Every structure is written in structure tokens, then in C-alpha cells.
């Protein structure tokens, strides 16, 4: 049970280090918690946008409006061409009359305008359902590009504008999140490293004594590594608590107010564990950084 003795030593040493230099430790804890909170916020927004985009992607239909001079045979031939694309799961023909019916169903008061609803304004169309593997913005856009040049199709619509915007918003979140996250992570690693470096400096005399007693470098580093991991993990925990508070008080309410179809979700259990693991690794990295040259300490 000699590992037990060392473990007890490491833990009590870590406790002393954190407690004796609590000002430093608190600064390191709070800064790492705040940076992880920022990363967490971006992640949370990303996860929710992603959910929404995905839900929309599943519902995407492409409307192919047809040339009004198309004969029935030509139309059947065109349907075969469309079905030959692997992206296309099924097609549904909507005739001019079907379109008028649907239009009136939506706007019953405009019955008077019926005369102006000729084949030019409400042409017949194919509504395309997409194969599951192709229910993404990018493959829809690609398919639309391919169908553009097919004879007999006059117009293609798939609500591209705002889905595209959503997609870009999501993409932007990842981008900003990564840049901000990387910067803040580096900052926290540096702060943890500096905290430990200062503790190390203050313990210089003690470390000299440990070496006299035959302590190896690994033995000496143990408590400082634990300190780094502890600071990182506690920082991550603190950031998650703050994130949950912000989520309940702000994000969830905004979501409720503006987005009806989807419930805003918090991070999944896996993501929560991920954040904690990130915190621990961040602290470990900081400790390793500061311990690179204990020999000189």
C-alpha cells in the first residue's frame, strides 16, 4: 500500500498549496470557469441551432415548377429523369387545379381573384421528397443546381434563403466558438500554469528538501499535477453551474418566446462530461507546462 501513502501525501500537499495560495487559486479557478463558460455558451447555441437546422432539413421539399406547354407524355418522361437522381426519394405531381385548390384553402377570402390565377401564376409542379442520406442543405442546393438545366422545368423553390441563413449562422457559431474557445483555453492554460509556477517557486525550499530525501522528479510533480487537474475540473464544474443558470434565466426564455416549433435543449449528459474532461485536461496541460523545468525550481 505504498501508493496509498503517496496518494495521501499528494492530496494533503495539493490542499496546502491551494489553501496557502488561495488568492492565486481563486483567480485561476474563476478565469478558467469564465472561459469555459464562454465556450459552453457557444456550444449551447450551436447545439440548438443545429437541432433546428436538422429538423428543417428533414422537412425540405423541392418544388419544381413545370412549363405550361408540357404534354402528359413529356411530363411522364421528365418524372423518370427526376427519379433517376439518387437524391430523389419520391415525386408528387401537383396539377394547376391542385395548386389553385391549395391556394384557396390557404387564402379563402381571395376567391374573387380566381380568374387571375392562370397557369402562369400557379403552374403545375413536382414536389420532390429527398432520400434520407441527402436531407442536408448542401445536397439540396447541389440537386437544385443540377435540375436547373433540365428541359421543362421553369423554376425551382426550396425556401433556400432562410434555411441557408440558418445554416450560415450555425457555421459562424462553430467558427467564432472555435476561435474564441481556443483563445480562452490558451489563456486559462497559461493562468493555471502561472499559478502553479508561483506555488512551485514558493515551495522551492521544500522541494530542495524532498530531493535530499531521495524524491524523484515524478514524486515532486505529483501534487502540482493534481492541483492543475483539480483547478481545471472545478473550473469546468463552476462554468457548468453558471451555464445552467444563464440557460434557465435567459436562453430558455428567449427560445420559448421566439421559436415555437422546437424546445430549446441544454447540453446532453455526454457533453457535460465532455466539458468536465476538457477542464481536467486544460488543468493538466497547464500543470505540465509549469513543470517542464522543475529542475530549475
Amino acid at each position, binding site marked *: *500500500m*505504498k501508493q496509498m501513502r503517496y496518494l495521501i501525501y499528494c492530496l494533503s500537499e495539493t490542499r496546502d498549496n491551494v489553501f496557502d495560495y488561495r488568492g492565486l487559486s481563486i483567480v485561476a479557478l474563476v478565469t478558467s470557469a469564465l472561459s469555459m463558460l464562454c465556450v459552453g455558451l457557444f456550444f449551447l447555441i450551436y447545439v440548438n441551432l443545429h437541432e433546428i437546422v436538422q429538423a428543417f432539413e428533414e422537412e425540405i421539399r423541392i418544388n419544381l415548377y413545370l412549363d405550361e406547354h408540357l404534354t402528359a407524355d413529356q411530363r411522364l418522361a421528365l418524372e423518370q429523369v427526376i427519379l433517376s437522381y439518387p437524391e430523389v426519394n419520391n415525386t408528387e405531381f401537383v396539377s394547376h387545379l391542385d395548386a389553385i385548390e391549395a391556394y384557396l384553402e390557404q387564402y379563402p377570402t381571395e376567391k374573387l381573384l380566381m380568374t387571375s390565377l392562370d397557369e402562369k401564376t400557379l403552374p403545375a409542379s413536382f414536389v420532390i421528397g429527398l432520400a434520407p442520406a441527402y436531407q442536408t442543405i448542401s445536397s439540396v442546393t447541389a440537386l437544385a443546381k443540377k435540375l436547373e438545366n433540365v428541359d421543362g422545368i421553369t423554376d425551382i423553390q426550396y425556401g433556400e434563403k432562410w434555411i441557408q441563413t440558418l445554416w450560415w449562422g450555425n457555421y459562424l457559431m462553430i467558427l467564432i466558438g472555435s476561435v474564441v474557445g481556443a483563445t480562452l483555453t490558451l489563456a486559462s492554460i497559461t493562468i493555471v500554469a502561472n499559478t502553479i509556477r508561483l506555488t512551485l517557486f514558493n515551495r522551492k*525550499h521544500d522541494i530542495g528538501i524532498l530531493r535530499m*530525501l531521495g524524491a524523484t522528479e515524478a514524486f515532486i510533480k505529483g501534487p502540482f499535477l493534481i492541483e492543475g487537474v483539480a483547478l481545471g475540473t472545478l473550473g469546468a464544474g463552476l462554468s457548468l453551474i453558471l451555464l445552467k443558470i444563464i440557460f434557465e434565466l435567459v436562453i430558455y426564455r428567449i427560445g420559448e418566446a421566439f421559436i415555437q416549433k422546437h424546445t430549446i435543449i441544454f447540453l446532453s449528459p455526454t457533453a457535460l462530461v465532455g466539458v468536465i474532461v476538457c477542464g481536467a485536461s486544460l488543468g493538466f496541460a497547464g500543470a505540465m507546462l509549469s513543470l517542464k523545468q522543475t529542475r530549475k525550481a
Partner: protein
Amino acid sequence: MIKLFHVYKHYDTQSVLDDVTLVVKKGDICCIVGPNGSGKSTLLKLIFGQENPDRGQIIINNKNVTHMSQWAISSIRQRMGFIFEDCQLILRKTVIQNISLALTIAGTPLKQGRQNIDRVLATLELEHKKNDAVSTLAAGEKQRVSIARAAVSDPLVLLADEPTGPLDSTATAKVFALFRSMSMRGTTVLLTTQNQDVAAKFPQHRVMLNHRKIIPQ
């Protein structure tokens, strides 16, 4: 067992040890007596790997420790006890924490370690102070903690640099009794003193260090 063969050591322009040869057999106690500045501490530091000799060989328990790697020095030190002239204690820690540090580093199992700690605390009359911070102790008490730490891990070799300097005669007698009992259990003891009365207590194996040379008594 400690062997030094033709060891030379100088600091800057000053030669401190000049062709020193000394053999202490396993389980023996050797007392080095010499005036201030005669090189006693330097001699122990060479054995301890804290200083390197200019020339010559140093062998401990059949291991040549002259110019060893830091890692090898660490593992040798785990089997050695060193009582430093200036105690080298961690002041913010308690008596018992300082003593058990030697056991933690040597990798002694918890249970066995506890027995050892109780034994040295009793021998050196430190029980009532065991939970006090070392910073609050008197010089003689600090010295006894330092001795306790060196003795607690049953080292193969005990190096004691003027161990009884700040101690009264009762405590001194206790410490020498401890050294003798350790040597009987196989620890090789090398101690230094500048006090002829102390040296007189070790008539069997006593050497004089003077003018950079070892002079057998």
C-alpha cells in the same frame, strides 16, 4: 558499507580533501572528528551525492556512486538517512508530517511506517510535540525531528553531520543509543563531530580529519 578511495575535493582555489581513503564496514559506527572547516560536512556531502569529488571513487553497498545520474542518486538516497547540520525541515509541516515524508519517499507501506514512526517518536521523546508545526519548536527539538526523520526508514546508511550539536547531555545519550541500536540492526553509521568528548564515546572506530587528510586514531 561505505568506501572512499583516494578522494580529492576542492572549492575554487581551496583544497578541502586530499587523497582521502576511508572504509566503514556494514553495521559499523564511524566517528569523524575534526575542527571547524576541516571538511567533515564536505566528506558527507560527497557520499550523499550532493557534491561530486574531483578524483577518486566512492562506493556504497557495492554501488559506485561517483558521478551518478540524478535518478540513481534519488534511489540511493531513499535507502540513506542524512542528518543535516541545518536540519533541513519543512517548517510549515508538523513533526509527524516531516518524519513520515521520508517513509513516503522511500515507499514504505502505511502500517509498517506507523510502527516505525511511533518507535522513533518514543526514542527521541517527541510524542507530545508530534502534531506541532516544526516552526514552533526549539533548536534541540528541531534537531531531534531531523534525527527521527533520518532514522525512521531503517536506512542502510546513516550520515549524521554533527548530530548532537544543539542537544543536552541526556538527549545526546539517547541519540547515541539510537545509533547503536540501528547499527546492530545493520545500518552503517558515519557521524561527524568537532567535540573530542563526543568522539571519545566511539573508541572502536574513530578517525581524525585534519589538514585535508584522514588520520586514524
